[in-house]
């Protein structure tokens, strides 16, 4: 069980705001944080990890106070049993994949076995002797996830871990992340902008805006792309098409078609 109420002054594009979030997470829950940039998602995640000091509030994890403003308690990040996956992966360039994991697992019983298992699980065994600079984005991301798990955390924090990856890689890693979350019995907080990703992975989603919680609840599955038929009225000099939709609305779209032809348009909601 993780409970917290944390506040922190934010400097947003819209001026100064206060990040103020109170939540509790059940053990084994996967919570997604979503919202526009500047909403305070990363700041909240960093406060949970102890990388940013809150202005006030408390954070209690499994009965232990990690932070309490009133009694001035503060557990430094080194002593919080959590795994953190950074947006830029933050792999150590001087170490190979295996050394990155070894470094994380150091000092634990069965460290070598843990590292072997994680390399296997995230399909990194073949890449174990490579340095991060010689890996693709998706591979680096898998190493970052494996490294975060190597110190056997109970809480996993992920800061937009998949945002920079192409769709097929992202989908494979979503699957890996879901498996890891269940297999290691983790409580996970994931920052994501992708409604499909949230719907696929998260038990609950918290939507933040300008430091405030706008909505907490089950993820909403994104609507399937809709299509509409229309007739080409004109092919414009810039290569775009003027279309007439049912009901008489006219729109300009990109595409290739003959004058007068009826074609299907797909509609994307943004």
């Amino acid at each position, binding site marked *: 069980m993780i409970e917290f109420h944390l506040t922190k002054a934010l400097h947003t594009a819209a001026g100064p705001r206060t990040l103020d979030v109170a939540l509790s997470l059940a053990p084994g829950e996967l919570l997604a944080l979503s919202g526009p940039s500047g909403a305070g998602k990363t700041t909240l995640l960093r406060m949970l990890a102890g*990388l940013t000091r809150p202005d006030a509030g408390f954070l209690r994890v499994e009965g232990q106070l990690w932070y309490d403003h009133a009694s001035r308690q503060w557990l430094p990040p*080194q002593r919080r049993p959590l795994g*953190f996956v*950074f947006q830029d992966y*933050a792999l150590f360039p*001087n170490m190979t994949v295996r050394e990155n994991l070894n470094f994380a697992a150091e000092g634990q019983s069965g460290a070598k076995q843990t590292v072997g298992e994680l390399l296997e699980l995230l399909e990194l065994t073949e890449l174990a002797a490579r340095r991060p600079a010689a890996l693709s984005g998706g591979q680096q991301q898998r190493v970052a996830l494996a490294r975060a798990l*190597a*110190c056997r955390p109970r809480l996993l924090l992920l800061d937009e871990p998949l945002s920079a990856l192409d769709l097929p890689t992202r989908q494979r890693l979503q699957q890996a992340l879901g498996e890891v979350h269940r297999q290691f019995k983790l409580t996970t907080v994931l920052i994501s902008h992708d409604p499909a990703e949230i719907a696929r992975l998260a038990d609950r989603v918290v939507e933040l805006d300008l430091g405030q919680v706008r909505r907490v609840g089950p993820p909403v599955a994104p609507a399937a792309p809709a299509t509409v038929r229309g007739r080409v009225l004109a092919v414009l000099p810039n290569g775009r098409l003027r279309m007439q939709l049912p009901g008489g609305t006219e729109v300009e779209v990109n595409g290739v078609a003959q004058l007068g032809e009826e074609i299907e348009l797909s509609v994307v909601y943004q």
Partner: protein
Amino acid sequence: MPPDYWQTLRLTLALASCTTALLLVLGLPLAYVLAHSRSRLRPLAEAVVSLPLVLPPTVIGFYLLLAFSDSTALGRFLIEKLGLSLNFSFPGILVGSLVYSLPFMVQPLQAGFQQLPRSLTEAAYTLGKSRGTTLWRVLLPNMKPALLNGAVLTFAHTLGEFGVVLMIGGNLPGRTRVASIAIYDEVQSLQYDQANAYAGTLLAVAFAILVGLYWFSKKDAAHLS
């Protein structure tokens, strides 16, 4: 070859090596603090560290000469309490070199720390690593070019030191006479061949050091990418 050629060269290399080694030890914590400090006093500290870049060496040498003499409280403390008579001695010119070459060590190291992404340090912290472990195993290995740069610049700069050593150390063969002063001394007495022996050696050493630096930097860059 000048009669005390090897003696002078040994002394020159000893001064450069000791200065480099000591400045690595002193410069690292200083650069680390300067790179991470958010104190309002930081510009002041940076100015103090960089002062030797813009001051004439004779000014540094003059004030150190005064500070080490028995006419100041510091000098009397050094001489009477610690038994350290620094003027016209090797330890004296070593202290002078440390002050004079400080920015050549601290500035590359500070830039090296600042170039590393903050997330590397934070990642190490979330893996439970202490500050010391993070510095030793994560930060320093990833700023090898900066370390090498600082060490090489300090070494080469100390080899070419003249004004500070002359002010504090004078020109005592075997004790404070370094190659750059020997060159001046030989030229004063019109011994151009002997001056040439020292000057040629300094030129060759400086060139070799720089070639080594660029060769290693290239190799290291290829190795990390």
